[in-house]
C-alpha cells in the first residue's frame, strides 16, 4: 500500500471541479483516506486536502494526473507540514462529564453543547492524536462520532 501522504490541491472554484478530482482517484484506482475542501478566502480558488496512500511512484503519478486536470492550479505534496483534524461526538449525560471534559481539554477540545440526553464534545488535534482521543473516548459510550478529515498547511 505504501506510506500515508497528504496532498493539497488548489483548484478553480467552478462547477464540477471536485468531481474531476474524485473521479480521477476512482478511475485510476487511487485511494482517498480523507478529503476536505473549502474556498480559499478572497480568491476564485478552493483548496482540497487529500490524505492518500501509495509508494513514491504512485504518488508521483497522482500528482502529475492532478496537474493535468485543466482547472487545477497547483498541487502541493507536503513534506514539512502542520496537520489538524477535528472530531465531534455525542456522549450520554449519565457519563461522568467532568472526566470527559478533562479528556477533551487534553486534546484541544471542550464540551460545546448540552442537549436533552447527550453532551456534544469536540477536539481538534493532529490526526494521530485524534485517533488516540477516539480510542480514549470509547469508555464514555459515545453515541455518534464525526470526523472532519485532515487539513494541512506547509511550514
Amino acid at each position: 500500500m505504501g506510506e500515508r501522504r497528504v496532498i493539497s490541491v488548489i483548484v478553480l472554484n467552478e462547477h464540477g471541479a471536485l468531481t474531476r478530482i474524485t473521479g480521477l482517484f476512482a478511475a485510476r484506482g487511487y485511494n482517498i483516506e480523507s478529503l476536505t475542501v473549502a474556498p480559499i478566502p478572497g480568491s476564485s480558488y478552493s483548496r482540497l486536502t487529500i490524505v492518500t496512500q501509495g509508494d513514491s511512484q504512485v504518488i508521483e503519478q497522482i500528482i502529475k494526473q492532478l496537474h493535468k486536470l485543466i482547472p487545477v492550479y497547483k498541487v502541493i505534496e507536503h513534506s514539512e507540514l502542520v496537520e489538524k483534524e477535528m472530531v465531534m461526538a455525542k456522549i450520554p449525560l449519565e457519563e461522568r462529564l467532568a472526566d470527559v471534559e478533562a479528556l477533551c481539554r487534553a486534546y484541544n477540545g471542550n464540551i460545546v453543547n448540552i442537549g436533552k440526553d447527550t453532551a456534544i464534545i469536540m477536539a481538534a488535534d493532529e490526526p494521530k492524536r485524534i485517533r488516540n482521543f477516539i480510542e480514549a473516548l470509547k469508555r464514555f459510550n459515545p453515541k455518534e462520532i464525526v470526523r472532519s478529515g485532515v487539513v494541512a498547511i506547509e511550514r
Partner: protein
Amino acid sequence: MAKMRGAQMVVEAMREEGVEVVFGYPGGAIMNVYDEIYKHRYFQHILTRHEQAAVHAADGYARATGKVGVAFVTSGPGFTNAVTGLATAYMDSIPLVVISGQVPLSMIGTDAFQEIDAVGISRPCTKHNYLVQSARELPRILAEAFYIARSGRPGPVHIDIPKDVTAEVAEFVYPKEVKLETYKPTIRGNVRQIKKAVEAIKSASRPIFYLGGGIIHSNSAHLVRELVDATQIPAVETLMARGTLPHDHPQLLGMVGMHGSYAANMAMSEADLLIALGPRFDDRVTGKLSEFAKYAKVIHIDIDPSSIGKLVPVNYPIVGDLKAVLQELLPLAKKEIDPDRYAKWREILKRYDELHPLQYKDSDEVLKPQWVIERVGQKLKGRARITTDVGQHQMWTAQFYPFTRPREFITSGGLGTMGFGFPAAIGVKRGVGDEVVVNFTGDGSILMNIQELITAVQYRLPVINIILNNSYLGMVRQWQTFFYDKRYAETDLSIQPDFVRVAEAFGGVGYRVKTKEEFDKALDDALSKGVVALIDVIVDRYENVLPMVPAGGTLYNMLLEYKD
C-alpha cells in the same frame, strides 16, 4: 459588439476558428444551433447516419489534416452514441471539439426526455468538458475548447449546451487569445536535460529510437528523419508512429510490440539506451514490464509529464513539445554523435532481420490478406491515405503496407474501436480532397458502421473499403486458436450479408473477389470510376498475425509461426 442568441454564437465561433466542415446529427435539444447552421452556411455540414460515425469522421479529418475536428450531436442518445468517438480520440490524443445539446437548465436533474448527465459521462474520456450555464460564458468556453483541444497533448473537448442557453441572447465578443491561469503546457525542453540526453546517446553502444504517436501530433517527423539520418541509430515505430520513417528507410526495423517485427522487438530487448520520442509505453508495445528493455537506460521526450515514468522508470526525462525539443537537440546531436560508433549494433540487428524477416506464405489457391495489402501498396504507395478498422486486418496493414509519410496511416490504436475505419475514412477524404482513401476493414468491423455508405454516397466522398473477409472475427479467432484450444466461441461469421448488394443498395459499387486477377480488376475499376466502393475479398480463413507476443509476455519471446 453584437448581441445574438447562444446558438448563433456557436456558428460564429466556428467561423472565427476557421472550421470548414462539421460532422453531425440534429435532434431536439440542439435544434437552435441547426437553425443557425441553416441560416448562415459558414461551413459544410456533413450529416452522418449515426452520432458515433460523426465523431469518428471528425477524428479522421483531424488525424489527416492536423486541424481540430468538430462534431455536433443532440442530447441523451445523441450524446451517448458519440461517447465511443470521444473515447477513441482521447486514447489517441486527437484534437476534437464535440458540442452536444442538453435539456434546458431548468429541467436538468428531472429525468427529462432525452436527458442524460453528459458531462458526467464524458469527463473520463475527454481532455476537458463544459456544461454551459449561460450564453454570456459561451464565447469564452468555445474559444477555450479549441485552444485546449489543440494545445499541449491534444485531445477531445466536449461542450454540453442546454437548449435555453442556445436561445438566450447575450453579447458576442470572441476572445482573440486564450489565457488560462491553470493550464500552461510546457513547450521548450530543459536545455541541460537535452545536453545530458545527447551525452547519454554519445556514450551508448546499443541505442534505439522508440518512435511514438507524439511525432505525428507535433508535426516533427521531418526532424526525426534528420536525427535518424545524422546518427544512423536504428529505429522502431509504434502503431501510432507508422509513416514517421519511410518503410524502406535503412534504419527502420519495423513496428514494435505484440505484432512487431522480430528485429524491432529484439532491438528493444537488447538495447542499452531507449530514445523515446513521444510514445507512451503502452502494454501492447512493452509486454511484461519487468522484462521490457531491461538493459536500457531511458530518454523520454513527451509533452505530457504524466506519460513520463508512468510505467517505466526514466533516466532522462524531457518535458516539452517534441518539435521544439528536437530543434534544440538536433544541432547538438549532429555535432557530437559519431554514427560509426553504432556500426556493430546495426550489424547485429541486420542479422536479426535476416534471420526472421516479416513474411507470409503466399498461395495460389487462396488469397492471403497480406498479399492484398502489399498489392494496394504497389499500386498506391505514397498517393493514398490508409485507414483501418480493428483486428487482424489492422495489424497486417500496419505490418505490410509501405508507408511513406506521417498522417498517411489512420487507425484507432489505444481504444481499438471496431467501426472506426469507414467513418474515419469519410472524414479523411473530406480533409484531403483528391487523394485516394482506402479503408482496410474486416467482415466484423465493417458492419459496425455500414450505414455510413449513404453518407459517403450523398457527399461524394469516394472511399474504397477493402474487406479482408475470412468469415471470422479473426483476431479473437486467432487467440482462441492459440490460447483457448480452438473453442471458437461466437467468432464464426459465416452467415454474412451479400456485401455487393449492400453496396449497391446504398448507391455505391460492390465487388466480390477470390483471386489476384479479380482483385486487381476490382481495385482498378473502383479507382477509375471514383465511386464509393466495397471490395469483398475472400481470404484465407485461418491466416494468423505473426510474429506475436502473447499478452503479458516478453518481447524477446515471440511466436514466429503457428504449427497446428
